[in-house]
């Protein structure tokens, strides 16, 4: 009975892992990159200069800019520069008839000169962030698919713990250079050692989308009026309407100071001004997510924009909201200091590696049966193609995305869309290549290609901008330098992986036979 249960779990782990493994690999890798979203954006928009932070100056500059360029907008949004993202970003929404949503316009303003920065049009790190839960699909579908993948991941984790029951006994075991056995060891090691992270990241992703996945509790408490739930959760959406009587907007700086005093010196993340220039203008000042682990969407201070009068202070979460906010905060890691951010990144890579090794093992086990005849059935061939394209192909696509950012001319129409196109074209080509080239050869060629693309990023940056490593390191611009160095490091690692696979390829027949023998011995 017990053995039967474990076998059933192993079956579920194997097949669920295979079907969703390719998608989960992409979600995990792009999500891991999203931990450095701001740093990637900084690299992809090198025109945005970093200045010493001065919130009052930035705020005055932003207000003056918006007053001049968008006095009649329905809403203004101001995001202050911080140590990770040097850009002062302003956004406004055009005023339209009631019931319609106006277009958003976003600009990056230099916080010293007050001029709009002519930065190249690029999605930057936001692309990876959006992709990891929207999957470049039309609105609800991508979110549903990624949430489904998260549920499957949770199932795979739990069945995995049951299947590989020896993981806690063999906690410190990793035996390299032993073929299939090493893959299993590696899969178990990254699985169990980083298990708290895997469980946290998977469960919290479900918590983040819980109102979409399980709306029943909301409907039960709020009836058909689900808006009431959201305006209670996100009080910033509940603002006074415009009266149509013009009145000048007060300076935002004193409101900023008052808001920070409310939070005992906490940082301001974003400001929203509703109906600027109206007698009923309201200013919502939101606390930065980097202040605390638990995210509190209600943590904001609201002012009347025309009089400067403090209207309300939001925040103070109920226990369930605090738990939900904690999961949200833990998943996003906004609060992480640079060291902790790197640890998050490494954990994310470990998760990616766990999925990747699982996929490789699935195929490796089944390939052994056909090693002697040398003829692989169609379905194994398909899995092999998808393995290559989903792993090394994705790395090539990421490299292509960065290259497109530097090589497309700044004046190119719909430039940021073309960067994304380059990503998917490269990914598609790698799928084609994987279908044409067999097995190890496909791996080696794609890994080498990815190594070349990523390893040459510092060179590319040096040729196309004036922010090469010498400059960025000397100036202490760690986001820029760190990006170059990380790409270089990944390039070297991928080159090493490709070289390793090449070395293994030459004496393949004997190695393969020895591997088969080893495995049969272990199976006994």
């Amino acid at each position: 009975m017990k053995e039967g249960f474990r076998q059933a779990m192993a079956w579920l782990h194997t097949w669920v892992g295979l079907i969703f493994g390719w998608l989960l690999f992409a979600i995990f890798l792009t999500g891991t990159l999203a931990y450095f979203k701001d740093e990637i954006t900084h690299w992809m928009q090198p025109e945005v200069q970093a200045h010493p932070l001065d919130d009052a100056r930035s705020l005055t500059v932003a207000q003056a800019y918006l007053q001049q360029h968008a006095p009649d907008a329905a809403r203004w949004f101001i995001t202050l520069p911080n140590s990770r993202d040097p850009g002062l970003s302003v956004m406004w929404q055009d005023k339209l008839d009631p019931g319609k949503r106006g277009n958003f316009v976003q600009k990056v303003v230099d916080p010293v000169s007050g001029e709009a920065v002519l930065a190249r049009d690029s999605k930057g790190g936001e692309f990876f962030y959006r992709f990891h839960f929207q999957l470049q699909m039309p609105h609800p579908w991508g979110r549903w698919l990624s949430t489904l993948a998260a549920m499957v991941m949770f199932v795979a984790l739990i069945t995995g713990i049951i299947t590989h029951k020896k993981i806690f006994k063999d906690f410190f075991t990793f035996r390299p250079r032993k073929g299939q056995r090493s893959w299993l060891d590696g899969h178990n090691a990254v699985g169990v050692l980083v298990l708290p992270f895997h469980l946290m990241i998977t469960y919290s992703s479900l918590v983040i989308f819980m109102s979409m996945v399980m709306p029943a509790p909301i409907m039960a408490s709020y009836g058909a009026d689900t808006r009431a739930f959201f305006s209670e959760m996100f009080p910033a959406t509940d603002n006074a309407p415009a009266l149509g009587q013009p009145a000048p907007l007060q300076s935002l700086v004193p409101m900023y100071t008052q808001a920070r005093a409310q939070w005992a010196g906490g940082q301001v993340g974003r400001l929203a001004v509703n109906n600027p220039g109206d007698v009923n203008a309201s200013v919502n000042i939101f606390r930065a997510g980097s202040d605390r682990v638990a995210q509190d969407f209600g943590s904001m201070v609201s002012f009347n924009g025309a009089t400067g009068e403090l209207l309300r202070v939001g925040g103070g979460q109920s226990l369930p909201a605090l738990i939900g906010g904690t999961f949200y905060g833990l998943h996003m890691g906004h609060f992480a200091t640079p060291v902790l951010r790197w640890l998050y990144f490494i954990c994310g890579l470990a998760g990616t590696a766990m999925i990747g090794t699982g996929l490789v093992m699935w195929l490796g086990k089944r390939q052994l049966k056909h090693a002697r005849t040398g003829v692989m059935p169609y379905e194994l061939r398909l899995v092999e193609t998808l393995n290559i394209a989903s792993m090394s192909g994705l790395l090539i696509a990421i490299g292509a995305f960065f290259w497109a950012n530097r090589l497309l001319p700044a004046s190119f129409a719909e430039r940021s869309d073309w960067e994304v196109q380059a990503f998917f074209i490269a990914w598609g080509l790698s799928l084609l290549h994987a279908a044409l080239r067999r097995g190890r050869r496909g791996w080696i060629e794609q890994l080498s290609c990815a190594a070349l693309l990523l390893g040459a990023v510092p060179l590319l940056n040096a040729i196309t901008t004036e922010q090469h490593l010498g400059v960025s390191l000397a100036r202490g611009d760690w986001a820029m330098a760190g990006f170059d160095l990380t790409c270089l490091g990944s390039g070297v690692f991928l080159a090493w992986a490709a070289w390793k696979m090449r070395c293994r390829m030459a004496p393949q027949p004997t190695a393969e036979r020895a591997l088969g023998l080893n495995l049969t011995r272990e199976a006994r």
Partner: protein
Amino acid sequence: MLLALLLCYAGFTALCLSTDRHHGELLRSKPSPQRRLGWRASGWLLLLGSIWPAVAVAGWSQGLVEWCAVLMLSALLLVLLLPYLPRLALSLAGAGLLASPVAAFVTL
């Protein structure tokens, strides 16, 4: 975070030495039952003790998150080092323990 890292790494190394297989690989001998118990107890004590410096520096919420991160990463580092550079893995733990009073002095 450094002190917590040093303690976690040493703690995991001690736990690793409490198993017959790894004790044999690293120290080329089979541990006596008392030895094994000693390694195990000191390993758990070090791991539990490492919570305190993490929380003392960064507060409970941030500190616990940092401690979890350090816990996972130190184990990952140890397991990756063991097959390739076992001597380094072992001496790192010793050096870490020796350096921990210095780290405590600097950070706390």
